[in-house]
């Protein structure tokens, strides 16, 4: 259980037709850290996350997750994956969704606990179709947490989430990381980047820069992370 990296993406390339979605990307996430994947729309963030979880077969390169070379179905029981859109069964209740996702991961599930975490205890018996967008997003997060994963992959988890809820989400993430869970989160919102321990900037399927928010700012010679990001990605397109 003491592998050096929770996620080890080594020189991974993937093309869809003529589009090079991942262009020889190398990226390592340490156990227990919150790693932010930054990049504009279409940069390859989702493809990278899907390659990590084994849904995309790389053309070349190696993905290792929690010490196991992917694809590896059994290790997926230790991984939580939250997709961009809330992927839930709309005609099941919140609790039924949670029980289902716990069961397919082979866990009893800490349903009551995650319901408390995402503050959906009152709506546990509500059918998902009747929930608001933000509640669905919370339920979707709960489904990614319910089997107590050691690695959490979050693909733009706060899209369409109001600022107050976003703050709550990030509080949970920090608590989980403190308890030893590794979190890889993609975003294009800069104030979220500020909350990550390390950042990776990706564009055109390549890693353009990596480091703590301070390091990234220093590398770009600016005090503003957004400016730093624009500068760094501008350099790549030159």
């Amino acid at each position, binding site marked *: 259980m003491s592998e050096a990296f929770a996620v080890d993406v080594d020189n991974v390339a993937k093309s869809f037709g003529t589009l090079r979605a991942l262009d020889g990307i190398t990226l390592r996430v340490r156990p227990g850290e919150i790693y932010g994947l930054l990049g504009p729309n279409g940069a390859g963030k989702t493809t990278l996350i899907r390659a990590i979880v084994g*849904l995309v077969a790389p053309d070349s390169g190696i993905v290792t997750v929690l010490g196991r070379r992917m694809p590896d179905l059994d290790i997926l029981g230790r991984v939580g*994956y939250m997709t961009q859109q809330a992927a839930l*069964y709309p005609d099941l209740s919140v609790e039924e969704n949670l029980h289902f996702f716990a069961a397919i991961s082979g866990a009893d599930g800490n349903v009551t606990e995650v319901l408390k975490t995402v503050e959906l205890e009152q709506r546990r018996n509500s059918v998902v179709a009747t929930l608001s967008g933000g509640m669905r997003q919370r339920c979707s997060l709960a489904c990614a947490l319910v089997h107590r994963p050691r690695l959490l992959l979050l693909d733009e988890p706060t899209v369409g989430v109001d600022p107050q809820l976003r703050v709550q989400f990030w509080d949970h993430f920090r608590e989980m990381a403190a308890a030893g869970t590794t979190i890889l989160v993609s975003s294009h919102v800069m104030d979220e980047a500020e909350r990550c321990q390390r950042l990776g900037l990706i564009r055109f399927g390549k890693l353009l820069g990596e480091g703590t928010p301070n390091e990234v700012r220093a590398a770009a010679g600016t005090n503003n992370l957004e400016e730093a990001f624009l500068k760094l990605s501008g350099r790549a397109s030159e």
Partner: protein
Amino acid sequence: MSGHRVAAITSRLLHQFRRDRRTLALLFVAPIVILGLLGYLIRGSASAPNVGVANQDQGTLGATIASSLEHSSKISATAISVSDGNARLKDGSLVAYIVFPTDFSQRAIQGAIAPEVHLEGSQPGSQAPVLQALQDALASLAAASPSAIRFQPKVTYLYGGPDFDQLDYFGAAFIGLIVFFLVFVITIVSFLRERSQGTLERLMASPLRRGEIVVGYMLGFTVIALVQAAEVLVFSLAVLKVHNQGNVLLIFGLEALMAISAVNLGVFLSMFARTEFQAVQFIPLVIVPQVLLSGILFPVSTEPKPLQYLSDVLPLTYAVNGLRDIMVKGADLTWSSLQLDVGVVAGFCVLVIVAGIATLRRRIA
């Protein structure tokens, strides 16, 4: 294969059905509506075609036949005069009229029974009862006047019997078809919904094996399909009183095989559709040709040769044939024809299960 994970999928599907009242209604009300309609259409046809009878015979035979025509249940006969006949065919108040000419009795004694039958002719379906009623009347005449003609065919039935009708013939096939069709539509759409709402992505990013997903689906839908199959069978036998000569459990077993193949065909074909709309397009492609060619409507032996080859490779052909053999002829598993039918349906079942598992791709590209 983990039983725990398979059970998770199966019980989730059943939970979803509990909430989805409309789909439940489709599964359990639609078969009753379809079969009830079919039964009413075939057996409830009270409207016998209107036939005019003009008796000009100078002897007595014409009147005897005319009166027996008026008593026939196949047509509704009324006396008319010959001069009105053609006009009434044209205005649609009659589908046919029958004339017994002045020398009818005289010629009958000489051995030539020659009634004139004038048909409207544009609706082939309505002329059969007219000719049938006339035949019955002539047969009864022969029986009534032994001095004149002898016409006493002795009819025996190998299968069925004098009361065996269209519903008995179609009913046997429809029992299987309805289950196959409805279960197919529901599986293909719900499996596709799994894809479009993004939950399949989540299933794929879990330790679930492909086989576990397919088997979980199969079990969930099979439970529903078996309840539906039982309902259809009970309705057909108890309410519609469709002719059944065979073992009810055997019928149910064949229905169950069809339901399981429908589920897996749905899972398999959902891989080739991106949206629910595209999935529905498989109905004219996959279901309609099978309905036309499987012998449900037209016996395979009467099809043009090239189409017979096609019918011979369609699984529904064997299912329909098997159900008819059981219900109409009382076939059991010692019949080699039924062994073939059941074998082909079971083989198809295994084929689509394997195809479903093989095409369910975990990884995109």
